[in-house]
């Protein structure tokens, strides 16, 4: 989990030594050229996206690269807010909140049980969990549709978030983390006669903050960006999430013509919440991506 930056000694290779100064300068120049190139490669598309959202249709189609909308117009935004987009945004928000709350709670419960509680069948359950982890999510599209229908919840709100509320990977991450907490912590609580749930809730869980944040970020990102599940869980535009609704822009939802400004505006706006969460939790994102990699 740790991302400690080791402080390097003054004799670190590239600061001194037989390498000539000129060569080092040359190397530095190459280094900065490369860095700037990549930085442009990674930021420029988003700049174009922002600018295009304020262009007119013909301007966007004919001057794709220009950074100055001519004329500047907010037509795309007006149309976007007139469409079902606000509903989709709301749906995405509700679904993401439910999924995240569910995952944080259920995954830590199950992860704790698998890590610390001794009960019959624990070993079998863990094996089952590993088996489930090996199932590629994408092959479940048809199966999940069948089951949602079968249970009679197709085209309802619960169909959007209940199936996503537990995530095998989340259980796994929580289990791994709970195993690193010293048992002695719980023993103190046990001596006080606290119940299992109480011990878990008020003693162990608060110590698992880093893992909980990781799960929160992963499930926020996972459910905000999910597409496949939302395609098969509903066909009612009132229940569309952002990904599902906006994906429809390219398959005929907008009608004829290119309509780049509105699709850029839609894409931009759905990226903003991600960007906000990303900026606030930046440090933890790094950990999330490396979740568990340092353990073992």
């Amino acid at each position, binding site marked *: 989990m740790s991302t400690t930056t080791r402080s390097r000694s003054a004799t670190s290779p590239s600061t001194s030594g037989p390498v000539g100064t000129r060569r080092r300068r040359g190397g530095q120049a190459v280094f900065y050229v490369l860095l700037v190139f990549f930085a442009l490669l990674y930021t420029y598309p988003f700049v174009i996206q922002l600018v295009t959202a304020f262009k007119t249709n013909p301007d966007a189609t004919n001057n794709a690269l220009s950074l100055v909308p001519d004329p500047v117009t907010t037509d795309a935004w007006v149309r976007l807010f007139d469409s079902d987009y606000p509903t989709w945004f709301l749906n995405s928000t509700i679904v993401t909140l439910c999924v995240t709350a569910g995952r944080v709670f259920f995954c830590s419960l199950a992860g704790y049980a698998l890590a610390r509680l001794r009960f019959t069948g624990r070993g079998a359950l863990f094996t089952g969990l590993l088996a489930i982890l090996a199932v590629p999510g994408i092959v479940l599209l048809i199966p999940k549709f069948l089951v949602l*229908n079968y249970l009679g919840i197709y*085209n309802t709100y619960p169909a959007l978030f209940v199936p996503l509320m537990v995530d095998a990977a989340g259980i796994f991450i929580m289990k791994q983390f709970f195993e690193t907490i010293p048992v002695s912590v719980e023993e103190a609580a046990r001596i006080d006669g606290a119940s299992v749930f109480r011990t878990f809730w008020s003693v162990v869980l608060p110590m698992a903050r880093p893992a909980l944040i990781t799960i929160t970020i992963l499930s926020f990102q996972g459910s905000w960006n999910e597409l496949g599940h939302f395609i098969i869980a509903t*066909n*009612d535009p009132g229940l569309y999430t952002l990904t599902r609704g906006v994906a429809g822009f390219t398959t005929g939802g907008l009608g004829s013509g290119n309509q780049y400004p509105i699709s850029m505006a839609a894409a931009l706006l759905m990226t903003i919440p991600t960007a906000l969460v990303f900026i606030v939790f930046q440090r933890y994102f790094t950990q999330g991506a490396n979740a568990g990699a340092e353990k073992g």
Partner: protein
Amino acid sequence: MKRTPRLFAIAAIGSLTLTACGGSGFEDSGGGEAGDSEAPASAEGPAELTMLIASSGDAETEAVEEAAAEWAEESGNQVEVRVAADMNQELAQGFAGGNPPDIFYLDAAQLAQQASTGNLYAYEATDNDDFYPSLRETFTWDDTQWCAPKDFSTLALQINTAAWEEAGLTDEDIPTTYDELSSVAEQLTEGDQVGLVLSPGIDRAGVFVVGNGGWWLNDEGTEPTGTSEEVLAGLQYLQDNMAEGHVAYAGSVDAGWGGEAFGTGRAAMTIEGNWIRGAMSNDYPDVDYTVVEVPEGPAGPGTLLFSQCWGVAAASDAQAQAVELINHLTDPEQQMEFADAFGVMPSRQSVAGEYEEAYPEDAPFIAGGDYGHGPVNAPGMTPVVEDLNSQLEGITNADLQQVMESFDTNASSALDQ
């Protein structure tokens, strides 16, 4: 205390088995078998209808919503209009989930498939004979006309005025035969500009097949005729002209479809339907152009016709109300209102005169209604047609004989099932 967990475990497993046995989300709604004469299901009291449309834009959505609301108010029922992002998929999910929309746009190419699966309720709208015969034919499968044509569109030739004049061409030169088409296309090809640019695939290549008197299937839709002389001649014409460089697919001139190539000036001519008007005024308002009929092929005039009808679901429990609503929507007056709102061509012959008067520039499209050929209409053919489409997207390098042989093989096995 000791027992609770076990109870929980039992409850958990129990809920799994229970749902496994007793799930009832799939509604086995009866009725609607191919062409039966059952009385329509009628909702008791005011019905709540759902209508799924594939909209060309806000204008269409608003017009349809308005018309539906009008009827709802008069009849005391409720209608909810939904816009589909991906019509086929959303319909399929509706049918499989037992909750299809009561009324929906149904593409002619999908008719046989849906009718043969038992998803459609067959009905006739008021004054059925007033619809163009070619359209009624398009929505007929297994000797039953399944639904009322909503509107139609045909392909015509669009010519960029500036490019035309620049090449020194006049009204006299407007092509009326395939040879003339090739020759003006050649004259119009200069620099970046290609004479004739087409959207890729079967829906444009088919024009030349029809012009040569051919079609992918026989008239009954029972046997493939892909390797027939007429079909091959039509495709050969296209391939030859592409090889000579004055006809091209949109992809090779940096465009997504014919209209885009036409708008950006990479194409001097294109063959598109009446939907091109909206796209041109939207994205390329400064381009001047004229529309003429597609030139006649060796076998006479030929173009492609696309149409949708108002489908009613077999699983709907308010079929009677649905048909009433469709009667309102296909009413001549209402059809003209739709035409005004979003530029579609009415499916009733009785409105044709009024339409042509109001939109004289659309005459070439209307004319196509008389000789246009509808899409392939046989169950199970969707993947086969899609495959042919993808083959024809690469027509420049294709071995036509081989492509059509494989089409015939695939079509035969699909039609036999």
